[in-house]
């Protein structure tokens, strides 16, 4: 089910990217509205669906941390007592009495039988929850609280599609590079370079979003994790590709040489995407080293913190022994349906779909502009008598 949803959204995004009007004609209005609507839905759902955990995950999250930060706990109100305490039952049917919660719940207009998300902090000394604030009453959907990630888990809707589109862009650029060599059409070279340029943009976005997230989760902006190395290599290749393109004046020559370079670089890219992550210890989910390390399945990272002195490192808890396939696949590719919450699956698929549409929209506009620029250059050359490209070089070359 999960594979069908995410895979279907991914495939549909690419199919819809090509199918109406291709890359060289304007997209129809319904297509553009679909892109805008799904993108808006991704942002709204990705940021808007509230997080609410159970008591145990809240306790796990506060480990190794002061009790200042309240955590969202999703529970139904069983009873409001006269002494100001409230009896709450969470999704795992754990019932806990929280002192001082009754006033906060009553102030928000909620009562007995309502489901609420409360900001609770756990006092380690008294081994009790303290109610801080009321967050939501009867939310339609909630996302689970993941210890060690919390609200940062939402990064999955923004960072992962960007990283995916880097690969899509690379694949499209390589396909058109091959076509431009085979068919010797200028349009193919334009499409290849446009896809590469957009791939570079998404590369930068994926790197930046990943780096900020990593600062708060892994302690450093940059860790030379295998995936970070891979994206760094891809960025260098894109840079080299455009440096090479700018060094050649002749159109046909530029198309051929840059296409060959892109195809040659497939070998290091395949190495860094598929072989290197399995060789070296990594932090990203799905890294090969996790097979040998105990993994806190919920936090998507090895239980041993990568850097010493990290302030929010969660204590590894030996509650659940993760299944073997969970260990080497990560939450998205794992065959275990529990690795990714159903609501998360929907939002994640939506984000893949909408980012793909956005990507193809920009790609479409870029290709059209490049072709228009080219056509104008040609017509200007025709009026001024200066012909660009191979013919001019032929005249200059002494025979």
């Amino acid at each position, binding site marked *: 089910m999960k594979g069908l949803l995410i895979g279907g959204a991914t495939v549909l995004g690419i199919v819809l990217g090509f199918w109406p009007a291709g890359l060289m004609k304007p997209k129809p209005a319904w297509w553009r509205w679909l892109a805008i609507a799904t993108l808006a839905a991704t942002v709204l759902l990705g940021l808007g669906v509230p997080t609410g955990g159970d008591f145990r995950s809240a306790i796990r999250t506060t480990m190794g941390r002061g009790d200042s930060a309240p955590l969202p706990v999703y529970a139904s109100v069983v009873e409001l007592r006269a002494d100001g305490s409230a009896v709450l039952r969470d999704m795992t049917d754990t019932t806990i009495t929280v002192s001082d919660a009754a006033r906060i719940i009553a102030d928000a207009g909620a009562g007995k039988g309502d489901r609420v998300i409360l900001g609770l902090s756990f006092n380690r000394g008294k081994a009790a929850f303290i109610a801080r604030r009321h967050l939501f009453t009867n939310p339609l959907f909630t996302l689970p609280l993941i210890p060690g990630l919390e609200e940062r888990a939402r990064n999955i809707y923004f960072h992962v599609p960007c990283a995916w589109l880097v690969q899509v862009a690379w694949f499209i650029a390589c396909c058109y590079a091959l076509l431009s*060599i085979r068919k010797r059409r200028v349009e193919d070279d334009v499409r290849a370079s446009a896809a590469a340029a957009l791939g570079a943009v998404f590369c930068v976005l994926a790197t930046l979003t990943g780096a900020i997230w990593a600062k708060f989760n892994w302690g450093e902006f940059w860790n030379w994790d295998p995936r970070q190395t891979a994206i760094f290599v891809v960025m*260098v290749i894109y840079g*080299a590709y455009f440096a090479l393109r700018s060094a050649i004046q002749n159109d046909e020559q530029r198309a051929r*040489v840059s296409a060959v370079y892109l195809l040659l670089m497939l070998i290091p890219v395949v190495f860094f995407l598929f072989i290197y992550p399995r060789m070296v210890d990594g932090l990203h989910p799905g890294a090969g080293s996790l097979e040998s390390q105990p993994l806190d399945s919920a936090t998507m990272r090895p239980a041993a913190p990568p850097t010493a002195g990290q302030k929010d490192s969660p204590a590894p808890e030996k509650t659940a022994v993760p299944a073997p396939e969970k260990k080497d696949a990560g939450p998205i590719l794992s065959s275990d349906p529990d690795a990714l919450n159903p609501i998360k699956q929907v939002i994640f698929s939506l984000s893949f779909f909408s980012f793909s549409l956005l990507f193809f929209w920009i790609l479409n506009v870029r290709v059209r502009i490049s072709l228009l620029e080219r056509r104008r250059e040609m017509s200007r050359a025709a009026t001024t008598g200066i012909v660009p490209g191979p013919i001019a070089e032929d005249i200059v070359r002494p025979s």
Partner: protein
Amino acid sequence: MRAAAIGFARAIDLSDPQREGAVRSLQARRTGSALSSAIVGSPRKCDKRKQPAGDSSLLPNFEVCCPALSAHVAWEYGAGVSKPFAGQIVASLLRQTLAVARKDFQSELRTRHALNSLAMFVVVTVSVMAFSIGTERITSGIAAALIWVSMFFTAVTGLGRSFIGEEERGTGFLLRLTVPPGPTYAGKLLVNLVLSLASNAILGLMFIVMIRGAEMKAPESFLVVVLLSSAGFAGAMTIIAALIARAGSKGALYPVLSFPAILPLIVLGVDLLRRSMSGIGIAAMADDLLLLGVYSVAIMLAGYLLFDLIWRE
């Protein structure tokens, strides 16, 4: 001269639709022999006995240097010769490869410019490292890293000359006409292989002699690592040199373009070199050595497949 050369190219390009006409006009002008012997070698080196039997009057005289290929041409045109064996064609390709390599070595030995500068670069690099480190005893990890840094820059400065030199001298055009792309690539690769193996071996030995801490505890694995990484360097640098020659000999592009192709070698090779320097044998790191070898072969093969596309006019 140029028209003759283009005709010659058409005559040996098996896929050119206008080849037949080109073959005829070449036969009329008899320029093929002069061109081919000027480039590939003197006619006395060529084996007259291997010329195809039957009516070869339709063919230009370039068959003196690639008899099997021209036999193939003749057979295709119904010149009354039998189809050449596959072995004949392979032998002819090998001969051409060696001819290209020999030509490069001969022209190099005439001036010794590239060899001298490469050797001096190695000496200067190791000396800079040795003086910078002083009498400090470094760990084998740092020694391996320093050797790799030196090998990278030696490769970047030394191995790019092959195709750029052809373009600068203007001989690339003639090479293109007389030798098919495959043997050209293989010949240049061979030259680069020898150069990079020699320079890397000298570099490694000089490091071990001159720098305290760089020790060769397992010589056989050290040698294998250097051999495999030299092969990778040569493979990556040959095809990228051909690309850059096409980009108008922009020397500054060389490290930029080659870095992504070299990085897997660095990632694998530094660790392998460190392990070999601390005395681990070949068997203990066979997996990583295999990976290094596979990457080197893969980049060579990719270069071979793609070379055709950029070399042709």
